[in-house]
């Protein structure tokens, strides 16, 4: 693509990455979550593929595909954490440890990041899964049918 597109992409890509990370991180407080934030980050991959060409990002497929598998495994392991009571039991909520703080007060409140138990961890797992999966799909589709693909 032209110099204009590449320059604008260099400016937009970090901002979009930060926004995607924010949506994933605050999934238990604000609208959005792992899937939505992962889709935002995957759109950055699409932007970079359009602006700089797919060949430049070819070796990232080898990183993204194992990352997707690892994140899927992490999600299932987090679900198995509560298997003593039930599958998907939120064992960390209200425990006082990691993400274990209770909601400041019931009803409308600004929210605290250190709440919700396994939900933030699952948001991270699903977020990495979606960003790696969709990013790998975008890259694979962009490279398909090329001689050097």
């Amino acid at each position, binding site marked *: 693509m032209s110099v204009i597109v590449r320059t604008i992409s260099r400016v937009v890509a970090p901002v979009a990455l930060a926004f995607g990370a924010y949506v994933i991180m605050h999934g238990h407080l604000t609208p959005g979550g792992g899937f939505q934030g992962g889709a935002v980050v995957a759109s950055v991959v699409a932007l970079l593929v359009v602006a700089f060409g797919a060949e430049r990002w070819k070796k990232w497929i080898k990183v993204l595909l194992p990352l997707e598998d690892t994140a899927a495994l992490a999600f299932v392991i987090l679900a198995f954490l509560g298997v003593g009571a039930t599958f998907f039991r939120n064992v960390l909520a209200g425990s006082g440890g990691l993400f*274990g703080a209770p909601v400041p007060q019931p009803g409308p409140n600004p929210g605290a990041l250190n*709440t919700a138990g396994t939900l933030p961890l699952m948001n991270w797992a*699903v977020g990495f899964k979606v960003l790696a999966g969709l990013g790998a799909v975008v890259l694979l589709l962009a490279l398909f049918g090329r001689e050097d693909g």
Partner: protein
Amino acid sequence: MKRWLFLAALLVVAGYLISGGVWLHPFGEPARSEMDRFFIENAQKEVAANNVVTSIVFDYRGYDTLGEATVLFAAVVGVALLLRKVKG
């Protein structure tokens, strides 16, 4: 013959669609709201999450999310299999 069959099918489908639109349930008045009430009142206490939607997606109905993750996983594996580089 074919045309009459088509017209009859068209009438049936159109009748279903129009009656569905006429007798549409009014917006904002769910027939049963016990479960909604339960989620709204208990999600902050039980899951300690402000975002009730996320608490439903990842806690109350985690199985649905597991299925969704499986679908995405299968789609990515399928694309990676079909579009991989084949030697020779």
